[in-house]
Structures are given as structure tokens and as C-alpha cells.
């Protein structure tokens, strides 16, 4: 098995208006790596994550994730790919009518797992994110940090090999953001490759790792934060 989990080769995304959102992006990510995608607003961070999550299709180049070519991924197979990759959204995207437990268990329900297995895994993951005692609560009764923990729990419950997070601390205060980042590191230490899109330099300095910097849809730097 290749050490590269993700390989982007001259990837570009051009809209119908001929404007490029991303242009000639090339980089590799190793298994178990922790990386930041950074850049100013409009640099293409979210678009890049969307490409990695098969929410968009590259118009140029190719993307290999776990030896799977996303450019040739059939529309009807996207849902299977998404079961293997976790995504944490800035706005959490929790279902307000479901409890914390039901939100977290949803990816397993989709996979038609047995109730006992679902229960075992949900309880384990809720303990990991520190929300074991809030299982029966509804998302709107939780703080922003707690909601983000629920979103993270949901994204990792399917044991993804790749976890993508789009500005996961964008709506959180500094202390809560730090807690969430610690959680991502903990998940990474358990073997999951983590890619976080953020423009929070302070956090990147506090939790240094590889940084891929974008500007106007191009990679302008690829370095380790500690080198800066």
C-alpha cells in the first residue's frame, strides 16, 4: 500500500465563466499526516476540501485518494466514498430535530449497522469528545463548542481514513478553539489523516504542522509551521 493517501496532480477547477477557482494544484499527503490548508478569503481553501470530499469535480488534473481516482468516480458511487471520509463543517450541519446520540449514530444507521454495534460505537465516540452525558440533549441546547464536538464525533464514528475540516474553529472562542484543535490532534494520533482549512495563524502556531498556503487558487507555499 502506498504511503501517499492523497495525491493531487495539476488539479484545476474552472467555472463556466472561465474563472479559475483552483489552478495547477499539486501536493501529496501521507497516511497519518496532519495538514493545514490556509490562505485569505477566496484563496480556494473550501473549494479544495470540496474537491477532496467529491462535492465538486476537478475540471483539470486528477485527484487520487486512497488509490481512488475522484475524477472518474461515478455520481452514484459518491455516497460510498463519503462513508470513508469524514467532513467537519464550520456551521456544524447538525440535524436540530435529532438528539446528540441520533446525530452521531446517523452515519452508522446509513450503513445499516446493528443497534448494539451502533450503541457501542456512539458511546465510545461521545466519551472521546467529552459529551457522554449530553447524549439525550438536542443540538440547539448545546454551546457552539459542544455542537462542534458533536459534528466531529459524527464525522469520525465511521472510522474514516481521512478527516477534512472546513474552518472548524471559525465560530468558536479562543479557548474552545484550542480544545477542538486538541481533539483533532488526538484523532490524528489514532491514525486518521487530518486536513484542516483555516486562516487562524495563532492556532497554527500553537499546534504547528504542515501548512499548504493558497492564494488566488494556487499553492504559494508548502512548509512546516515550525520552520516559519
Amino acid at each position, binding site marked *: 500500500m502506498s504511503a501517499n493517501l492523497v495525491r493531487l496532480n495539476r488539479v484545476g477547477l474552472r467555472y463556466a465563466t472561465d474563472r479559475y477557482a483552483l489552478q495547477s494544484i499539486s501536493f501529496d499527503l501521507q497516511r497519518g499526516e496532519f495538514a493545514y490548508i490556509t490562505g485569505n478569503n477566496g484563496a480556494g481553501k473550501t473549494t479544495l476540501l470540496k474537491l477532496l470530499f467529491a462535492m465538486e469535480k476537478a475540471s483539470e488534473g486528477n485527484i487520487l485518494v486512497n488509490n481512488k481516482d475522484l475524477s472518474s468516480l461515478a455520481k452514484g458511487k*459518491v*455516497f460510498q466514498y463519503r462513508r470513508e471520509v469524514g467532513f467537519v463543517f464550520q456551521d456544524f450541519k447538525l*440535524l436540530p430535530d435529532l438528539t446528540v446520540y441520533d446525530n452521531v449514530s446517523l452515519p452508522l*444507521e*446509513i*450503513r*445499516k449497522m446493528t443497534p448494539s454495534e451502533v450503541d457501542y460505537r456512539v458511546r465510545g465516540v461521545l466519551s472521546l469528545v467529552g459529551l457522554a452525558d449530553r447524549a439525550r440533549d438536542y443540538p440547539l441546547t448545546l454551546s457552539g463548542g459542544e455542537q462542534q464536538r458533536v459534528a466531529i464525533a459524527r*464525522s469520525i464514528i*465511521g472510522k474514516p481514513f481521512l478527516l477534512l475540516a472546513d474552518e472548524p474553529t471559525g465560530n468558536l472562542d479562543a479557548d474552545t478553539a484550542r480544545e477542538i484543535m486538541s481533539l483533532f490532534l488526538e484523532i490524528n494520533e489514532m491514525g486518521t489523516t487530518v486536513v484542516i482549512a483555516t486562516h487562524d495563524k495563532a492556532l497554527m502556531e500553537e499546534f504547528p504542522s504542515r501548512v499548504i498556503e493558497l492564494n488566488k487558487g494556487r499553492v504559494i507555499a508548502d512548509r512546516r509551521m515550525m520552520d516559519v
Partner: protein
Amino acid sequence: MSKYKGLRYSFSDFKRQPWLHIVSISTITIALVIIGGFFLCYRNFEKLAEKTSPQITGTAYLKEALTTPQIQALRERLLSLENVQRVSFKSKDNVVEELQSFLGSAGSIGLPGSELFPDIIEMEVKKETSPEKIQIIKGIVSRFPVVAEVDFSDDWLSQYKKISQIIKLVGLIIMGFVIVGCSFLIANFMGMRHQSRRNEIEIVNLIGADRNFILAPYIWEGIIEGISGATVALGILLFIKLFLASLISGHWSTFLGGYTWSYLSVTQVMAVYVIGVTMALLGGVTVFLRFQEDTF
């Protein structure tokens, strides 16, 4: 989504958006009352027609001085014709007697003698015989050498058949319009619900839900709405039937010969349920197909 989970989600949506569901069910109910009303009218029209329609009969006026073997041979030939189920010979004396008995005391004064009347053979044909077939029988019998003239009182039959066909045609057209119109309305109501759940669908899609998982609640909702709408519609139709029955027994019983108003047959009740569920499912699936391009 497992089917029970899908059902649970559907019920939770009924709790979340009761008014949208009530409007959808009401639309189905109205449509089914119109369609069921047509079924009710048609069934009773058929039964009434069957009850009030006299036997279809024809009369063959015979030439003079036929012998008994000739009459017997004619009877046998007539009975061998398709759709003729009974024949009876009436001599001119019998004819005069019947006429006198029909006219009562008025007949005994000025009625001419039996010499003016011919012997006749009356033929009864099956009720389902079409006007065209009666014309064929008429043609055949009139060509018999011993028959002077044939008369079938079949005008009412062709009128009845025409009306029956018109009712069927109009009913089918109304049903078509109602089903298409209501499916369109339901699709719009479901569209409103879908819009409100679009965020939810997007989320489950992003965490790896397949089409069946997303479609399952809509299927359940369609089934629940269709069955609910049909049940309410059947209740309303039962009320209408009881009202009409009491109206008939009170005012028109003499006119309709003591006819008892019937409710829908088992097949028609099943048809109302099937149409109700189909309309609801059509609405749901149409909306789903409309949005699936954006979702997947």
C-alpha cells in the same frame, strides 16, 4: 434507511409540519371524494337501470292461417337465434283478451273483433344484447316467410347504452383531470416540505446517505397521506350515501320504485385507496426527482 427508521422520520415530520400534511391529505381527500362520488353515481345508475329496465321484447306479427306445426317450427327457429332466450305464441283471441284486460271497462265498448288482430309470437332477448344485435335479429325474423312484420321496442335500450357510455367517458375524463391536477398540487405541497427539509437532505447526503435512505421517508409519507386521505374520503362518501338514501326514501321512493341507494363496491373502495396512495406517491416522487439533480 431501515424501513422502520424511515417510518419514524416520516412520523416526526408529521409532528413538525402538521399543517402542510393536513393540506396534502385534504387535497387527496377532495380529489377522492370527486372520484368516489363518480364511482357512487355510476354504481347506483347501473343498479337503478338494472332494477327499472323492462325485459327487452320483440313481437313477430304472423301471417294468416298458420298451422300448429308451422308455429312450432317457427318457435324453434326463433329460439335457435343468438340472444333469444324465450318465445311465446299468442293467438289473436289471446291478444284481444289481453287488450281488453289492459283497457278495462273502456275496452268492452268499442273494441273491434279478434279478426282484425294477427296471431303473434313474443320474443324475449337477453338484457345485455346490444342494439346492433337486436337489429340483426329483427332483420332475420322479418325475412321469415310466415312473418308479416317485426317490432322491437329497443329505442330505450340504445338511449340507455348511449347515456351509459357518455357517463363512462365523462367519468374517465374527470378522473384523469382530477388525478393529474391533484398530483400536481400534492407535488407542490411536497415541494414546500422538501424545501424545508432540503438542509436535512443535504446533511444526510454529505454523510454518505444513498438515494433509498433519502427517498424512504417520502415513500412512507405518501403511503400514510394516501391512506388517510382515502379513509376520510370514504367516510364523507358514506355520509353522502346515507344522506341520499334518506332523501330517496323520503321523497322519491315512489318515483324510483323503492330503490335502496348502494355504497361503493369492495373493488371501488380498493380503487379509491390505490388512487389515493398513487397520487401521494406521484407527488412525492416527482418532487424527489426534481431535486435529486442538485443533491447527488
